[in-house]
């Protein structure tokens, strides 16, 4: 609790903690200097979460949909902004990856958070993302 997590130490902790409750998940550490933890949740339809720790923050993010999958971007942005305050612990955002717009659902927490809080964040983020995807079905192609 006193020492902040790094991406590596969090990876080890999640992998080896018997109470981690991430049995139905693939954990993979990718990248070199600033590695990212990829978490594939099988019980959430193989939803892939990306987690990175930097200094005082843990950032967990998952792609909601591609910009190209949205029927009306303005209407969708509006809907996202309206949903965001109702979404507990997670935020909706827009980023570019690989040259295309990706809507993401993400959460941030302190890198001094205890392991159960990190695990809860992972589960809540996955649940919220699937619920958001379902709620936005009308907006998506």
């Amino acid at each position, binding site marked *: 609790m006193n020492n902040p997590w790094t*991406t590596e130490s969090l990876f080890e902790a999640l992998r080896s903690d018997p109470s981690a409750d991430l049995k139905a998940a693939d954990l993979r550490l*990718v*990248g070199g200097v*600033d*590695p*990212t933890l*990829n978490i594939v949740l099988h019980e*959430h*339809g*193989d*939803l*892939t979460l*990306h*987690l*990175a*720790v*930097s*200094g*005082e*923050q*843990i*950032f967990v*993010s*998952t*792609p*909601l*949909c*591609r910009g190209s*999958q949205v029927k009306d971007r303005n209407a969708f942005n509006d809907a996202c902004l309206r949903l965001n305050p109702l979404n507990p612990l997670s935020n909706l955002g827009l*980023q*570019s*990856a*690989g*040259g*295309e717009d*990706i809507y993401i*659902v993400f959460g*941030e927490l302190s890198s001094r958070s205890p392991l159960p809080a990190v695990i809860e964040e992972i589960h809540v983020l996955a649940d919220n*993302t*699937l619920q*958001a*995807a*379902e709620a936005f079905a009308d907006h*998506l192609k």
Partner: protein
Amino acid sequence: MASIFTKIITLFRGAAHEAGSAVVDANAMRILDQEVRDAQTALLRARDDLAKIMAQRKIAADKLADKQAKQNEYGNYIREALSRDNRALAQEVAVKLAQIEADVATDGKVIAEYDASISKLQASSRQAETVISRLKQQIDTVKATESVQRAQAALAAQHAGTGAKLGTALDSLERIKLRQTERAAQLQVAEELAAATGEDTDLHRRLAQAGIVPGEASADSILARFEAQQPKALTHDPAPQLGQSVGAASKTS
């Protein structure tokens, strides 16, 4: 803080027409770095100023203490002179004391001003420290976001060759629905199978009851069959005949 957001948002607006987010991230980091440096410079300056003013205040306070000592001393002289009925001398000292008391009042004001400056500088140091820690947090966020974005871009690139794209929640939803459908189908098949087996068992049981197929409790009929095969055996019991006819029936069916 607001000015930083303005700068970053301006960057996004510019980048919409340009290569992409890498430029924005690099520039966002540069802006944040610059802000941290500015805030740190401001903090150092505030601390320098604070040190100088605190030194000046100490000098002024020491001088004031000297003057206050003199004020007491001259007061004592006046009292002493008056007690000896030397009013002229007391008058002379009183003129000097008037000057000292004026100085003490002025110095007191100067020190109060120093104190005000000191608390202002301490407040702005604290503020600068807060700004710096917030900026550092923001830098952490940008860095973490950056590594995650890199990972997502790498995933997107990995799938680029195969025609597949970076998996999103929509794909996961599809997968979940597909799995649910599959599971439902499996469940249905299993149920049908179970029902079919159940029907067979029931039919078989009823056939056996009717004596059309051999039932479980066919020890009697087995014995009867053996008895029937015995050439010398008497066949007064109707059961073996039934057993034989059952065997014939099941063979022909």
